[in-house]
């Protein structure tokens, strides 16, 4: 078990190194000169040269890469070009907001999809099932930004019930949580419905019934515990994705999260911040994946022994 975790962590280092290299290359391949963007188009060549020197952009790519990797290992990604504070400080400011949003969206998705999926599976092709399956296809087909904009129009502009911008009160969390949870609810509901249907045909369900257990007990825990195994994987991956920041949704709601920070840093060619954002997101994702795999072994004893 411990050996497995160590192996996975060693592997993670290589994954992150690859990500770091890729993001380092990509931000530099995007046209436009960061110094020019900051100084403005009327700056003199001398001003630009000193600015580049200050930003470390006058050195060769190899030296820049070396410095970047060296810094990344100690968690130092350099200062933001635009705000003159360490890139990590900016991330530390917004990451908790994104995490809060991710937790809320996952919680809402779980709370909604378990009962919906269960109800749908109890009567296949019944009224509830039809509504749930069609509804979930429908919500999944709608683009995220569109749902966000519509919700903003209705609840902020027309009804004036909820604020639209920033994060000044807990009320600001409501709409983005809904927008992020909706497509997730669709996927999960159908997964839980189909999973339960499959599990209900298994031999151990027949055994549980033959023991004379109440149908309630047959479903919970016998069926649910088995149907939940693949769900955990999806929830984990989705949580990882959400922790990485939902760039589009955060932008629509001007939400101070890591997704929006990444978008802004790319727009401003703020290399250091963009690199830091991508690496942090990748690290979080790799870590969540490891946690999911470990949870999997906890839920399914057969996996536990296979290791």
């Amino acid at each position: 078990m411990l050996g497995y975790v160590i192996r996975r962590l060693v592997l993670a280092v290589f994954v992150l190194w690859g990500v770091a290299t890729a993001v380092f290359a990509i931000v530099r391949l995007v046209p436009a000169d960061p110094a020019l963007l900051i100084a403005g188009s009327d700056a003199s060549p001398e001003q630009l040269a000193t600015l580049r020197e200050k930003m470390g952009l006058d050195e060769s790519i190899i030296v820049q890469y070396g410095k970047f990797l060296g810094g990344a290992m100690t968690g130092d990604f350099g200062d933001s070009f635009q705000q003159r504070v360490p890139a990590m400080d900016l991330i530390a400011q917004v990451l908790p907001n994104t995490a809060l949003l991710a937790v809320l969206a996952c919680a809402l998705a779980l709370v909604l999809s378990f009962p919906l999926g269960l109800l749908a599976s109890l009567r296949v092709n019944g009224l509830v099932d039809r509504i749930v399956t069609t509804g979930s296809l429908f919500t999944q087909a709608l683009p995220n930004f569109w749902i966000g904009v519509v919700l903003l129009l209705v609840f902020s502009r027309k009804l004036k019930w909820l604020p639209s911008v920033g994060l000044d009160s807990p009320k600001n969390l409501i709409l983005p949580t809904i927008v992020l949870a909706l497509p997730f609810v669709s996927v999960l509901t159908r997964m839980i419905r189909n999973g339960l249907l499959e599990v209900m045909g298994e031999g151990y369900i027949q055994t549980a019934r033959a023991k004379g257990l109440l149908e309630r007990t047959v479903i919970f825990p016998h069926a649910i515990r088995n149907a939940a195994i693949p769900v955990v994987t999806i929830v984990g991956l989705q949580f990882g994705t959400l922790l990485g920041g939902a760039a589009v949704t955060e932008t629509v709601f001007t939400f101070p999260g890591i997704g929006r920070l990444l978008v802004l840093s790319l727009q401003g060619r703020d290399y250091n911040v963009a690199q830091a954002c991508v690496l942090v997101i990748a690290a979080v994702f790799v870590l969540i994946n490891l946690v999911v795999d470990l949870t999997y072994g906890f839920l399914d004893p057969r996996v536990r022994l296979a290791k």
Partner: protein
Amino acid sequence: MTKTQPGTAPSASPTDAPLLSVQDLTVEFSTAAGVARALRNVSFDVRAGETLAVLGESGCGKSTIAQSIMALLPKPAGSIVGGKILYGGRDLAAERIPAVRELCGTEIAMIFQDPLSSLNPVFRVGAQLAEPFRRRLGMGRREAWAKSLELLKRVGIPDAETRIRDYPHQFSGGQRQRIMIAMALALKPKLLIADEPTTALDVTIQKQVLSLLADLQAETGMAMILISHDLGVVADVATRAAIMYAGRIVETGAVRDMYDHPAHPYTKGLLESIPSQTSIGGRLKPIVGSPPNLLDLPSGCAFNPRCPFATDLCREQVPALRTPTTWPAGHEAACHLSEEVLTHA
């Protein structure tokens, strides 16, 4: 339809009423291709302490009988469309599923063919064994655990004190079936339905599991319905047997009588295809053809296309279960030509 007459099997006295009486049970499955009649007018009795074997090829309806009794028919496809399942003065065929389930485990219990898929993979066997005690009898955790341990020891799991904490996949096939047996017998049911309990096991393990079942039966006095496709397996354990073909009972009687004097060509064919009855180096005699499609049964006797005795009468009229003339009561066959089949035996 003729009823199975109780009271003629050598082991049972005529006075005791049957524990379970299945009468004219008819079950249908609606499939995409049409309605399949899985059971037609199946009747049999089981008395306390006896073992009835239900035999036949796969798809003949053996397991459907068990599912009907336990209210385990797959819903909504399968349903009982006629007949009665009488148990303790109640007709289980007419009762709602939850009412039948109350009898499951305490009065009638069941074990299945594949013990691996029949045990929940994510729970320790101890928890699964303790479930009947905790959920049905409301026992406390500690007491239920002690009871489970006792059961596990009784069915012969070595090192039960530690193994009780293991998961199903950590046991061998034979041990898993022992655990299933322990679980089924936890609440001391009066009737155990064993649906192909040894089919998934190695031949050497089969005998052990069957003798465990026989021991437990002697100890508790429970009745048993042993469903199997293997006539050899059943011979030593069962007192009476019912042979099924295409959803009907085609022959029923005391096992010895029937094996020595089969009165139905299908039974005769089954007995002739048992390897042990053929000398080494000799050839097995299989039954020609394959079982009929339940959606499209041949007219008359369902066995007629495969039957060496078949006449025009067999192709026109469905034979009823009857005792062959000059033959002792209690042995019945659904064949127009039983007398002729018997003389060939």
